[in-house]
């Protein structure tokens, strides 16, 4: 396809997306105005938009606070997850011995665990970082172990005949082969890290989007509640977008398609 044809196709798909969004919001607005009554459970988009503009300062600071906890937990999950995977990959005995414990730890529902984490790490951002990390690191480990092990044995043999040791095999072969697997986990982890940060705020904090949502719920302020939801959606989408851009930048070669 030529560059001009690609651009035409991109413009066309953006146009379709914009029309779909306008149609969706329009239908929502009309339905709420027709059937919503004086105090609708789902406020009209125009009302939500007005409130967002009204409390934009609060939304921005809350969003930044929550996103910071989520991103910190996420980065920690990336580092620990990959490191753990490298250890597991290099020692199958260790992997067989310890893996079940990690699986068991993941079976504990985060809600049950969060209260304890707040007790340990307090009401500040640290406890949110811990929960975001806890929710995200294991999928990264599992995915990366699989990626590291998915190397072609013949390629490993080839590098060994050149005299490559373990570290060279890791850097020159296993890491690049593992990258597509890592990014599958990293995309999913944007969501889990954000959930971790928000749920953490519900258990104890006085800042962040999670707190904003909880307080609006207690005050039965549905408009503000929806502002919180919109803020979460925007944060989540931005987070995901950054990871996808990073993936495109780092994975320039045609890799096996792992997307579901």
């Amino acid at each position, binding site marked *: 396809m030529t560059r001009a044809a690609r651009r035409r196709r991109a413009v066309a798909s953006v146009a379709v997306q914009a029309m779909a969004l306008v149609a969706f919001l329009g239908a929502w607005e009309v339905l709420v105005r027709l059937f919503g009554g004086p105090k609708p459970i789902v406020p009209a988009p125009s009302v939500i938009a007005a409130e967002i503009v009204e409390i934009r300062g609060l939304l921005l600071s809350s969003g930044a606070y929550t996103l910071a906890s989520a991103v910190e937990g996420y980065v920690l999950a990336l580092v620990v997850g990959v490191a753990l995977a490298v250890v597991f990959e290099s020692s199958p005995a260790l992997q067989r011995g310890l893996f079940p414990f990690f699986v068991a730890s993941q079976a504990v529902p985060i809600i049950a665990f969060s209260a304890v984490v707040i007790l340990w790490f307090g009401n500040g951002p640290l406890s949110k970082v811990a929960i975001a990390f806890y929710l995200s690191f294991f999928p990264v480990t599992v995915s990366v172990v699989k990626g590291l092990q998915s190397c*072609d044995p*013949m*390629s490993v*043999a*080839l*590098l*060994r*005949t*050149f*005299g*490559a040791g373990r570290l*060279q095999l890791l850097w*020159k*072969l296993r890491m*690049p082969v593992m990258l597509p697997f890592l990014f599958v986990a990293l995309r999913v982890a944007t969501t889990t890290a954000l959930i971790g940060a928000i749920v953490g705020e519900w258990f104890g904090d006085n800042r962040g989007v999670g707190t904003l949502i909880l307080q609006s719920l207690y005050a039965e302020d549905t408009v503000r509640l929806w502002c919180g939801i919109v803020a979460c959606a925007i944060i989540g989408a931005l987070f995901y977008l950054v990871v996808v851009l990073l993936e495109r930048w780092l994975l*320039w*070669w*045609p*890799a096996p398609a792992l997307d579901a």
Partner: protein
Amino acid sequence: MADKLTLRRIAKTFEVDSGRVAVLEPFDLGVADGEFVTIVGPSGCGKSTLFNIVAGLLPPDPGGSLLIDGRPAASTLGRIGYMPQRDLLFPWRTVLDNAVIGLEIQGVPRAEARRRALDVIGQFGLDGFADYYPFALSGGMKQRVALLRTFLFESEIMLLDEPFGALDALTRSILQEWLADVCAKHRRTIVFITHDVEEAIFLGDRVIVMTARPGRLKLEVAVGLERPRVPAVVTSAPFVALKAQILDAIREESLRSFAALRTEAPPG
């Protein structure tokens, strides 16, 4: 003068649940410095096992040893260039960076390795393709990149395991001629596995025929044809006679392994 590469009583037996399977029986071979030896044999004769042992990927059974320049080599890893049948190019590396990976592992600085690759890339028919990624190349070109990678790796001995096995007949014959030419320019000691008897004679100074499993040396013939060899040599009388002799030996072995299979098969 000692041979460049000596295999002394190299054997391999694999342990499986139902007992032991002998894949390679004690095998002796000497390859002179600068010699091009080709090995042919029926499928499953243990050629690849032999290569894995020589490359250092598999230990031989106790009692066997490998000698380089007459001295026992504890491990040949990092000392012998090995090229498997598949190109095994890394999709995230350009042609140039794929070619220099062996040098990189040997510790040659990247800039120096690239310079050396660029010096000879033209001889490999890859001029102007240094910055291409492998997915943009044809099968024949990928195979030439893989050969370049093996050539650049600093080793005096090269093992080539059916490097042209997966290519179409035309590309294959062009690459055979080209390989003979490159080998004449860069004096290397080469052991080359193939299924193709014509290829074995066309390229080799000596052809080794292996027996059916367990693999042993069945026949060894010197190819007296003068170099450089032209494609027309394959219809010359000495070439045809050699081919007939080798094909007879292989056929005998293939029949024997086929018969063995039939007696091994459970009755009924």
